[in-house]
């Protein structure tokens, strides 16, 4: 009954582990991929008002023009990028939908798509659902989990149709400087490759300012499908609003799929998202809180002998278990049963990463502190 294409997609090996965690009450969780902050009140207030005013209908397929205009203004101000709100921006249901649309809009069956590992769980799955063949570009801890331009150059010899970039990255939290992005672009620009740039965590960049991929140069802008949304930076995961910026042709193609499969994003969420772009003060406060927690947790893990690269974005760090020579799933299970602390095994983000765990520090400082005490106790018994 089930299509071959879907059968081919491996169910995530850690689903079972997730069920274990969800079945356990009173877990200290460092395994959550969303902010612990509740959506800032002014954004929620706007959503409530929208309901009161009777905004309960569909919107245009592309999404509310006022929101597209606000996004356009935001990108102009923040990244000096110009996207015409009328035909170069599409509102999606979360960034995940944007990614799905982008892949379906550009991939022909059998086309190759580069996924940089460790990767967000949806990347290879969505590429395969779009009938693509996935080429994995494995990044290494020794290279800061960053793309090695030489390895990339080698891989593009296989003439891939597209590459999915994601920075700041889930699960490593690493991001790229403008100089590093230019080197990546230098390799990519020589070929006719579509760059799908998932910049969901751009607001959560700690040290340098985030460089948006299409801002590198004109040609980069023409070739990039830029994905972003409100979930992470604005603590709005449940609102389900993402957006895509790209040239007219790609937005038109993606809107075609979106109009048949989704119709439009929820109107209340779209109205709230416009308000979100005005809540920069709140965003800054959340960013500061994450940054302090990051400094705390990275120092603590390194003190415990679990080598951790200090991430410059998002709210994750990718912690090495190499010193203890233990498999990540086994580590996560034991830690859960013995100390009731949940982490995500590295294998969730690529089978090669079995000696890492992903830690989310989108958790209160008290929980982080208690987790560290528990992990220290756990390691002493290992």
């Amino acid at each position: 009954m089930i299509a071959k294409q879907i059968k081919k997609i491996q169910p995530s090996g850690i689903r079972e582990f997730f069920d274990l965690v969800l079945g356990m009450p009173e877990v200290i969780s460092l395994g959550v991929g969303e902010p612990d902050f509740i959506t800032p009140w002014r954004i929620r207030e706007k959503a409530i008002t929208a309901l009161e005013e009777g905004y309960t209908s569909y919107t245009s397929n592309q999404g509310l023009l006022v929101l597209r205009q606000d996004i356009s203004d935001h990108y102009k101000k923040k990244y000096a990028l110009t996207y015409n709100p009328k035909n170069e921006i599409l509102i999606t249901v979360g960034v995940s939908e944007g990614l799905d649309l982008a892949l379906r809009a550009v991939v022909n069956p059998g086309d190759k798509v580069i996924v940089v590992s460790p990767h967000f769980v949806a990347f290879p799955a969505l590429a395969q659902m779009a009938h693509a063949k996935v080429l994995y570009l494995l990044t290494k801890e020794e290279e800061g989990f960053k793309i090695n331009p030489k390895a990339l150059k080698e891989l593009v010899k296989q003439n891939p149709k597209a590459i999915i970039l994601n920075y700041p990255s889930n699960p490593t939290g690493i991001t790229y400087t403008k100089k590093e992005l230019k080197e990546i672009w230098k390799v990519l620009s020589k070929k006719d490759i579509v760059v799908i740039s998932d910049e969901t965590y751009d607001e959560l960049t700690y040290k340098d300012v985030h460089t948006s991929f299409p801002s590198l140069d004109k040609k980069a802008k023409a070739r990039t499908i830029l994905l972003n949304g409100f979930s992470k930076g604005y603590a709005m995961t449940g609102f389900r609003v993402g957006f895509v910026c790209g040239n007219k042709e790609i937005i038109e193609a993606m809107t075609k799929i979106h109009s048949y499969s989704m119709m439009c994003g929820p109107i209340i969420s779209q109205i709230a998202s416009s308000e979100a772009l005005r809540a920069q003060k709140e965003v800054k406060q959340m960013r500061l809180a994450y940054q302090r927690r990051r400094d705390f947790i990275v120092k603590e893990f390194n003190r415990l002998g679990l080598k951790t690269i200090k991430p410059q974005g998002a709210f994750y760090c990718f912690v090495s278990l190499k010193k203890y020579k233990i498999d990540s799933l086994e580590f996560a299970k034991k830690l859960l049963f013995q100390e009731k602390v949940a982490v995500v095994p590295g294998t969730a983000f690529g089978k090669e990463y079995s000696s890492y765990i992903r830690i989310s520090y989108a958790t209160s400082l008290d929980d982080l502190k208690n987790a560290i005490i528990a992990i220290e106790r756990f390691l002493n018994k290992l």
Partner: protein
Amino acid sequence: MDDILEILESNSRISLKDLGKLTGKSKTALEKSIKKYEKNGTIVKYKTIINRQKIKGDKGVVALIEVKITPQKDVGFDLVAQRIYRFPEVKSCYLLSGTYDLLLLVEGDDIHTVASFVSEKLAPLSSVRGTATHFMLKKYKEDGVILVKQEKNKRLAITC
């Protein structure tokens, strides 16, 4: 604002060790900064916000009192205000624009203590032209902290 101040403002009981981990500063550097802030009056006091409604048998009452006063030559409102804020019953005192001049926050054991403070100490002052006393019924939020019901996030325990 300095990181140290921002963190202390939300949690003045944080240990120097944790403060160090959050700010990346050494213990001695932190001690030095905090001392400096204490000395120059940036840090005024370390206090605890207590929700008195939770204390069984706590009989205290709080009143906000609007006071109209006659300003005095050369010193304006300051001298009268000083006269008033020196009463230990007055916990806070603000000079405001609008229909009245001073707003006082007064605490007492019960309504009678506050009433006698108003009638015997405050109202008889020659520069006080009138008062209006409002007793506080319920505190919802204080110093930016919501006292009634804390919001909790409803996330799943694990997601990618």
